[in-house]
């Protein structure tokens, strides 16, 4: 090891990696809302109850000792075992503390696949939640603009990353081709999405200021 580290061999081992101290803090603060915890490949994972998940995530963001100010990713997992719950997964990062934490919300497939949106906490969750909605059919309550993002808006075959979705889709290739050719790409995007200039007035004040002065300040 050139950098003098001696613990390189143990990193990633489930048994020896320490649990994040955020986990015990969450247990103290929320008690039974924390359903289960685990350490996998050095990452701490916390399963939380769907009803109070938004509260947990807001607490993790705003509490000074936690300060998870950056949402790395929102995704979902469906397991091959049909008995197991579908899980919505939030990968959090504290830029100041250089700490990571993964929060998972189990969703029973018999119930509605619905969780609270976290766009009000992290703006970056907007497109990530749209992708989870598009691919898994999980709806995010309170999302400002929940529609498909990868497949086109009139896509009628379902949610492609679900385990009951056939690899080649439900329809025949001819029907898929017909529907794809009939899709009008311009019909489902707002003018603001198609042209950045049109969106100028909708941008936040400080962003307009930066744009009008050039991202790196005045260039004379």
């Amino acid at each position, binding site marked *: 090891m050139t950098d003098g580290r001696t613990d390189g061999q143990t990193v990633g081992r489930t048994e020896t990696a320490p649990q994040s101290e955020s986990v015990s803090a969450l247990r103290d603060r929320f008690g039974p809302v924390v359903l289960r915890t685990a350490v996998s490949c050095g990452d701490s994972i916390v399963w939380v109850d769907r009803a109070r998940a938004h509260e947990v995530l807001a607490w993790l963001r705003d509490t000074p000792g936690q300060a998870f100010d950056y949402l790395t990713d929102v995704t979902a997992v469906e397991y091959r075992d049909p008995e197991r719950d579908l899980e919505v997964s939030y990968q959090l990062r504290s830029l100041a503390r250089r700490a990571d934490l993964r929060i998972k919300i189990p969703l029973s497939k018999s119930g509605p696949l619905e969780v609270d949106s976290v766009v009000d906490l992290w703006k970056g969750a907007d497109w990530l939640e749209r992708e989870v909605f598009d691919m898994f059919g999980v709806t995010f309550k309170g999302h400002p603009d929940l529609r498909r993002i*990868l*497949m*086109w808006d009139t896509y009628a*075959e379902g949610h*492609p990353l679900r385990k009951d*979705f*056939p*690899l*080649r*889709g439900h329809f*025949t*290739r*001819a*029907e*898929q*081709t*017909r*529907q*794809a*050719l*009939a*899709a*009008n*790409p311009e019909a489902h995007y707002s003018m603001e999405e198609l042209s950045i200039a049109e969106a100028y007035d909708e941008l936040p004040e400080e962003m307009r200021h930066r744009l009008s002065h050039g991202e790196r300040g005045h260039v004379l």
Partner: protein
Amino acid sequence: MGLKTSDSGPEPTEAELAAVSSNFLTTKLSWLTNWGRANSLWPMPFGTACCAIEFMATAAGRFDLARFGMERMSFSPRQADLLICAGRLPFKLAPIIRRIWDQMPQPKWSISMGACASTGGIFDNYAMVQGIDTIIPVDVYVPGCPPRPEGLIYGITMLQKKIRGESIADPTLRVEHMMDDRGFFLPPEKIDEISEPFGNSVHQTRSA
């Protein structure tokens, strides 16, 4: 007809001369037109994946596509006559490549570059068009994953050979037979047939 040989037998009749000269002129005009078309192709690059990297290498200095008259990459379909689809085509891009193809003025040709554009390649899944020939007509298929620049150049020279063999007098050459207003130019059964999996993937069922 200024050519005249002294001892070449009997003089041709007026009718024979007219027939021969018109044939002669038509052939030469075709040759001239095809020569011009084949050597001044303006490609519209439609690069969607790694094939586009090889396409860029083909256009750059070492392989130098300009040697074949493709000096100008046309990023506007209205000033292009060769569509090179370099990379896999998802269904979401199908209406877009169709519209680009429709916007290109005649005469126009297309090259399907790489395994994915030609057949869907490894992407035998819900999101991918199984060969762009279900969307637009294709003149030359270049195999490879991705094809090397030499492969693309070989495909382009094959297309030039094809263009040199065309006849400007053939009115059916440029007709695209649209089936109906759904935008198909192939019957649905044909699309299903050429989209069928092949090789190892025929053993996978649609529900797998």
